[in-house]
Each structure stands twice: as structure tokens, then as C-alpha cells.
């Protein structure tokens, strides 16, 4: 199988360089300096109009100092009110209708509820930032340290995330204070090799997930009492079990074939190599150690890192009705803490979402695990804080379900020609697999 055809082709390589000499580059790849003329037709006109409206709309959302001077303000407000109606419809339809916290978040919420902040709540746009239904609000947080690029919206007071002038990669550190409570989030790129080396030297003795957003966190502090709860990747990784009972789906097959075939193939190769290799090749394939066992699924037992805070078992559930109210969201942020693709055997991901309303906040720290053909696992930590009573409720919920059974459920729908698409949808999976356990705690004894 050695290459007869390449010898001839080698001639062609002479004199070609890897130099990035743009003048020599073929025209096909040159990024056109001027945009090509749009094809005549309704489509292009509509798109351009839409772009223009977006531009007006977004520039209206910048803090007044930064609003582009060329855009007269009255015009802006008229555009935004023009779209108020539309987005209001989207918003209401997007709110989950079902009162069950446990499983009924509709999948559609992800997109449809993403209504524009400035236009979602026209009634509040007349309110000043600092007065949301009597709550005292400050953006950034009162104790915010250093620069903050995330101002609040002129119209609704919601914090603009990512920052209007964010450059990539995004490094945002928005914050907000409402009554006694300050919320901080930080989003940065994955750890670099230096940071990873330090971690594996000093903190972790197992291979770390492929993507660790080790500088990301969500922190909620009560400025008066000092009660604090924080979610970050490194603390979560500290909480892993020492081992993991799962293996990838083809483990048995792989192990068996390794035992039989490897001796086989080494005999064969020994014949083939004859005197070439003096070493006994079977030593390479047999008696291979496994790495020190660790939880390669990275399933944390993590409810957040708390300070000045004691939780007591509680029978009180998180008040769904309060969360179903379409109160304006003053602060919404989501970020990933870590993610690993399990060498393409599925996915393991820890992420956080937080939304802050004038009277309460909800934080969801979700761990999602899919091992292809093996299992689904979800571990949710929800933190609810009532800004009026300063009560903190924390709910920890575990879900697990065999992969094959869920796949059977999905494939039973004959119209579905891509069943695995749903299995990648974390929200859908969360609603369709059973709950194993739920524990609720509170900082106030029942």
C-alpha cells in the first residue's frame, strides 16, 4: 500500500512557500473590501430595513452618553415602542404556563422568551432605575470593585449583558445591588495552560475537564449580614466522587477485543517485523495500567460555596407563583463553569443561570451528563432569594435515566427523523426524565 502516485506529485511542491504573502494570494480568498451589490429584490430591501431598525434600536439602548449622536432620541423611542407590541406577545407566550417547578419549563422558553429588555416592559420605562416597585437598585453593585462595562438600560433599568462595547473574547463582570443583596458574575475564556498546570500541580490529582472556565463565577452577597453563596468551577471539581461506576458503552467490547486481538496482532507484527524489533511487543499491549481512577464524568456534588450562612432542612418549596409573574428581569446572565465532551462519548457540563427581579432572584446551577448509549444525569441546584424577607431557599435535585429508554421514547414518534437532536436538548431531557431526589433547605428554620 505504499505510494506510487506521490513520487510524481512531489515535483509540484518545489518552490512553493508557506509565506503569508497576500499579494500572491488567489483572488478567490481575498476578503472583498467592498460589500457586493445586493441582488435586486424584496429580500435584500427587507433585510436592510431590518438591519437599520436594529441599529436604531440598539443604539437607543446604550447609556445616554454613548448613544450615537446621529440618532435623534424621539426616533429611537418611536422605534422601540413600535416593537413593544410584538415583543410583548412573545414574552407572555414565552413564560412557562405550568406551575410545576420540577419539570415543566417549556423548551420554547429558550428562544421565545428572549424578549428585548427595553421593549418588554414599557410600563417600567417611566420608572427611574432606582425605583422598581419600591426596591432600591444600584448598577453596578454598591461594592463593585474596579471598572464595570455593564450599565443599566435607560428604558427598563435591566443590566446590559454582555457589555455594549464588549470585545471578544468576552470578559464581562456585571453586577447589581437590590436592597441588601449584591449579585456579581464574571465571564472569561477557558483557563490557559499556565493556569491549568498550576491547578494540576497544587489542587487536583486527576485529569481536568477539557474546558474549564475557572475564572467564571456567580456570587450573591447580603451586604448587611455578610451571607454569601458562590458558584464556581474549581469548587465544583473539588466535590467529585473519587471514582465512577460508569464506563463508555463499548467498554466491554473494547476490553475483550483488546485482550484477544492484541496478542494476535502482536504475533502477526512480530512476524512481519522479524529481526527489526527485538522487544517483546506483547509487553506493550498487555498489563497496561489504567490511570488512577477518578470520576471521568465530572459529576459534582455541589450546592455552592457558602459563607456566614447555615442552611436548615426545609419543607417550604420554592414559590413558583412568584417566579411565574412576568416581573421585569433586571439582571440575567448565564455562563458555563466547565464542560467535557468525554472524548466524544457524550457531554458533561456544569452551567449557571441567574435572573434577578425587583423582589426576588433565582439562580440555577445545572450539571448535565449524557454518556451516549449509557445514561443521562442531571443535578440541579436552585437558589431562591426573597429580597423582602431576606429568606434564602436552596433546592438540590437529582435526575437520572438510562439512555436507551429515553431514545426508545423519542424514536417511538415516527415523524421524528432526527431523534438524537432532542437528546442534545438539555431542557427537553430535564423535563422528560424522572427525579430521584429533592432536598430543600433554608437559612430560616421552619
Amino acid at each position: 500500500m505504499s505510494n506510487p502516485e506521490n513520487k510524481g506529485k512531489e515535483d509540484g511542491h518545489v518552490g512553493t512557500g508557506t509565506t503569508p504573502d497576500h499579494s500572491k494570494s488567489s483572488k478567490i480568498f481575498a476578503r472583498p473590501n467592498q460589500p457586493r451589490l445586493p441582488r435586486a429584490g424584496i429580500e435584500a430591501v427587507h433585510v436592510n430595513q431590518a438591519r437599520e431598525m436594529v441599529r436604531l434600536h440598539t443604539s437607543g439602548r446604550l447609556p445616554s452618553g454613548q448613544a450615537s449622536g446621529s440618532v435623534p432620541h424621539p426616533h429611537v423611542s418611536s422605534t422601540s415602542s413600535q416593537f413593544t407590541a410584538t415583543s410583548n406577545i412573545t414574552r407572555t407566550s414565552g413564560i412557562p404556563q405550568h406551575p410545576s417547578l420540577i419539570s415543566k419549563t417549556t423548551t420554547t422558553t429558550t428562544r421565545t422568551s428572549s424578549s428585548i429588555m427595553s421593549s418588554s416592559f414599557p410600563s417600567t420605562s417611566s420608572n427611574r432605575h432606582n425605583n422598581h416597585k419600591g426596591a432600591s437598585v444600584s448598577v453596578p453593585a454598591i461594592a463593585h470593585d474596579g471598572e464595570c462595562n455593564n450599565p443599566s438600560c435607560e428604558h427598563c433599568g435591566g443590566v446590559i449583558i454582555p457589555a455594549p462595547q464588549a470585545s471578544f473574547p468576552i470578559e464581562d463582570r456585571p453586577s447589581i445591588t437590590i436592597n441588601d443583596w449584591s449579585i456579581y458574575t464574571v465571564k472569561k475564556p477557558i483557563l490557559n495552560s499556565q493556569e491549568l498546570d498550576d491547578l494540576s500541580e497544587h489542587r487536583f490529582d486527576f485529569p481536568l475537564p477539557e474546558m474549564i472556565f475557572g475564572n467564571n463565577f456567580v456570587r450573591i452577597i447580603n451586604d448587611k449580614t455578610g451571607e454569601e453563596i458562590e458558584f464556581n468551577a474549581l469548587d465544583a471539581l473539588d466535590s467529585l466522587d473519587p471514582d465512577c461506576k460508569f464506563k463508555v458503552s463499548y467498554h466491554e467490547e473494547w476490553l475483550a477485543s483488546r485482550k484477544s486481538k492484541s496478542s494476535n496482532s502482536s504475533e502477526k507484527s512480530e512476524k512481519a517485523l522479524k529481526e527489526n524489533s527485538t522487544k517483546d511487543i506483547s509487553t506493550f499491549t498487555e498489563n497496561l495500567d489504567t490511570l488512577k481512577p477518578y470520576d471521568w464524568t465530572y459529576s459534582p456534588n455541589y450546592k455552592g460555596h457558602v459563607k456566614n450562612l447555615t442552611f436548615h432542612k426545609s419543607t417550604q418549596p420554592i414559590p413558583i407563583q412568584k417566579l411565574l409573574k412576568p416581573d421585569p428581569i433586571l439582571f440575567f446572565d448565564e455562563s458555563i463553569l466547565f464542560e467535557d465532551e468525554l472524548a466524544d462519548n457524550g457531554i458533561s457540563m456544569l452551567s449557571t443561570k441567574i435572573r434577578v427581579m425587583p423582589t426576588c432572584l433565582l439562580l440555577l446551577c445545572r450539571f448535565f451528563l449524557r454518556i451516549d448509549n449509557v445514561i443521562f444525569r442531571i443535578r440541579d441546584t436552585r437558589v431562591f432569594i426573597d429580597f423582602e424577607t431576606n429568606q434564602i431557599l436552596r433546592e438540590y435535585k437529582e435526575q437520572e435515566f438510562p439512555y436507551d429508554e429515553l431514545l426508545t421514547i423519542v424514536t417511538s414518534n415516527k415523524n421524528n427523523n432526527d431523534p438524537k437532536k432532542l437528546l442534545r436538548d438539555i431542557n427537553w431531557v430535564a423535563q422528560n426524565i424522572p427525579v430521584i431526589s429533592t432536598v430543600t433547605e433554608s437559612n430560616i428554620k421552619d
Partner: protein
Amino acid sequence: MTVPFSIPTTDLDYCLEQLLDHKPPKILPPETIQQLCHTLKTQLLSAPNIMQLQSPISVVGDIHGQYHDLLEIFQIGGSPPDTNYLFLGDYVDRGYYSVETISLLIALKLRYPDRIYLIRGNHESRTITTNYGFYTEVLTKYNGSSEVWTYFTDLFDYLPLGATIDGKIFAAHGGLSPSCQQLDQIRALDRFREIPHDGIMADLVWSDPDTEIMDFKLSPRGAGYLFGLDVINKFCHDNDLVQMIRAHQLCNEGYTSYWKGKCLTVWSAPNYCYRCGNKASVLEILHSNYGSKEQQRSNTEEDIIEDDGNFLSYEDYENRFNSLKVRQRQGVLAGQFFNVFEASPENNEDTSQGKSVNGINSNENFTGNGDFFSSFFQERPAKQYVEYFL
């Protein structure tokens, strides 16, 4: 079969134009894809499992459907046919433009067969592409038909498994295999099949180097290998190689050097999955004259230069293949340079539109209802993204 065995250059140029001159790129019709794949298959039939390539050449790692970042590579690294390229696999899945990416690479390979070389990664597989997004993307872009996916995945079975550069460097997607001590064992494989779960073919696209271990170690997840310094030293010694170049592992800097350049990882998907914020690189290999006198002299002259930080000046860039400073910092051999780049503006756009903030390939949500306003709302940047989650 009436399908011709070669496609006229003008037709190929038209395909390239469809992909390159339109924004967003125009996808090729199924019949065209079928013909491109068929023609390339007939050509790849005669390609050996390990291609023998020569420097100068640029080596590209995982792309994962990040089409605009691929174009960025051609911008910074020179475009075909002026620069030779070796792609190390993982063209599809995860990004939003797998179809465009693999279409472009196939068209380029057919147009410039001696300038572009493609090898197989673990994502060039039927099972993996159904799990990680390529299949879904094809259904979305081709009106629910998986026909095109079949053409592509059938072609994947024909892709070579590795390459040597100047006979001194071995390049593959993943790493070494405990069942393989000689390159000839790879050359003797029957590669025209789906990637199996075990054996040399699987290990070549799956395994990873590990600086903490010796020998091969089983991965704790129950399948796959890690290999240590002694393994690569022995493999290089037995096969008269100096280095292994591979892709397969994400790294924030866009490249990783193991054991002083004995093994290199090149990663070419910046801001991977539109959320990692990582850099990417292509490895430019100018020559492999590691022992020449001239080279040694220039080494000693430059020994005095001290590394003053992270900034690469224009002079550094000009001398990038000769500067010991650059070489030491990157951990590469003489005549090699990691050309590092960041995400394309289009990648940033997709990111800020929040397409994949917290999910995998949620692009299906973006096909929308098709009415005018849905497209308007999709145009908005992600700043407004709020969710009444429970």
C-alpha cells in the same frame, strides 16, 4: 456509471465561488455534492493510508464547522494554491457551518489535488456525526433530507489516516497505538470502512499524549489510550522520525508542545463552540533541516536574545522560522512556526447572537417560523437575551 471521473476546472471554480463569494455562503446542491464526493472517492482510492508529503506545508488542526475561521486561516496563512495545506481531520460537528466547511475542503482538494491534503479525524464517522450535530445540520440545510450526509460520510471512509512530512514528521489526528510499532502496520490497514471502536485505526484518531505518564495507559473512561514519552521516543526511533504532529485536543493558546517539540498539538478552531474564547493556530513548516551547519550557527548567535514577554514584533514575525526566541517560546523545532490567530468577525457575530451560549448546536431554534419578524428578531445581538427559566 456515467459519472465522469474528473470534474472540469470551471465547474470546480464555480463551486468555490458559490461558497466563497456569498455571504452567507451558498450551499451546493445535493447532485453537486454527490458528484464531488464520488470523484474524490475515486481519487482517494489510490492514495496510501499514510501520504508522503514534503515541506513547505502548513498543518491545520480541528475546524469543527467553523467555516469563517477556516477562511481566516487562508487569510493569515496564505491561500491555496500558493500554500500547501495538510488538514488533520475533524472538519464537521459542533460549529454551525459543517456543510460549508466540508464542501469547501472537498472542492479545494479536487481543484488543487497536490496542494491540499485531508486526513481523517474521529468526527469523520457516521455515529459521531449523528451525535454531535453534523447530521442535524444537514437535515436543516437540505430540507430534512439526509442524502447529502450519506455522500459525505461515505467519502469519509476513503480519507487517508496520516501523513509523513519529509519522511521525518508523522502527522495523524489523535496519536499512537499500542498495537502499532511500525508505520508499515498502518500502511497495511484496510482503511475503507467506518472507524472501529478498537485497533490501530481507532487509536490513531482517538489517543492523546500525556506528559505525566510512561508507556501506554488505559483511559479511566474505559476505552482509549494515553501515551507517554518513552512510547513516542521508541516510535520515532524505530521509524526514523523526529516528531509527531496531531490535533484532537482543545488548548487555550491554540497549540501545545510536549517534550520539547517531540509531539505537537495544533488546534485550529478559535473560540471553539462559540464559547471557549480560545485562540487557534496553524503550524507552518518551512523545512526539516534540523542538523545543517547553517542552522546550528544561527542557533548559537541567537542564544543571547532574551525573551521579553508575549508580544511578537514584526521583526520576530519576519524571522519567525529562524528566531530561537520564537522557537523556544512555542516549543517547536527549527523551521516551524505556530501562526496563532483569533476568531473571525463572523464567529464573534454568531457568539454575540447567543446562538450557543448554553447549549450545543441550538441552531435549530434559529430557522424560525420564516416570517419577516422572526428574521428581524434573530438579527438582534444577544444583549437582550433573558429567559424566564425555572
